């Protein structure tokens, strides 16, 4: 970011922009958690099937 261009407030630093970024990141973290749950269940299921 060139020094001369910083006098006016930049949109990416607005509270709204931050909220969107944080919301997206949290959504991704939630998706990750669901995937870990699914993977974990499948592992248990697969092992159970093997032992039968």
């Amino acid at each position, binding site marked *: *970011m060139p*020094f*001369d261009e*910083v*006098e006016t407030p*930049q949109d*990416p*630093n607005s509270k709204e922009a*931050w909220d969107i*970024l*944080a*919301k*997206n*990141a*949290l959504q*991704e*973290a*939630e*998706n*990750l*958690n669901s*995937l*870990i*749950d*699914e*993977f*974990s269940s*499948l*592992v*248990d299921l*697969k*092992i159970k*099937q*093997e032992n039968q």
Partner: protein
Amino acid sequence: MTYKNDFYRFVRENRRAFNAVMPINIDTLEDEDIRILCNHATFKAGEPYYKESGGKIDPAIIDGVRVFFNRHGTDSPKAIAKAFSWYEKGALNVSSLKDALFNQPSFSPRIENYLKNKRQENYRKAFSDIQKSIVNLGDEIKKAVEIMKSPEPLSSKPMALQIRAQMKKISAALERCDKCGRGGLGWAHKVGIPLEKSSRSISQMYLSKLPQLERAVSKVEVVLASQGIKSSVSTQINRRQFLWRHDIQMAKDELKSQAKNKHKQQEDHYAIR
């Protein structure tokens, strides 16, 4: 180079005094940085570098290390850019940077805006990196889920090899997550931004599921071991959890300590003037 050796000697011999006015990690400085500091600082090879009067550091030292900023004039993009390059390399910490810039009476609010925007920019980038790494980890786990959906038994050789390869990719993705996430928290701390609620939530969510992932991977590894196939991904996940928790705790402790020491730092700040 003589000036470089002199500079190192100056810092070594006067480390306490030097750090008190401008803590600089000399290992991070490049020749050009040192040359500028040497040219503009009051110290000269062979002369007393600093003297103490009544237990206080000679103001000449303070002026010396700061003169660079004055020399280039107020609001000078060159001075600011240089200060920032030192700051971003970790040569100056944030309080030194503020000290160097804001204590100049003629520096304008434009610089404050620049600092604010730059901090936000860096933090935003770190935050976005965390998000990308979480998405990447999710993609790798999604592929592992697809593999596990196959009707092939886990103990069959092709299946075992396939899932091991995918678990290795999960481990690599965790490494990236680890780097971005811990880096992101580090940045938040470094630029003096308290751990934001969202950042903390992400860390907590991420950390809360890692033990579950570790247990699932560990169960797969038991099956793989029975087939003579080695894998150590669960150990790596365990290690990463430890590192994350450690980093978060460190960041929290340092923030607490910073708040506690703020008053004392202010007293010291004025005592050396």
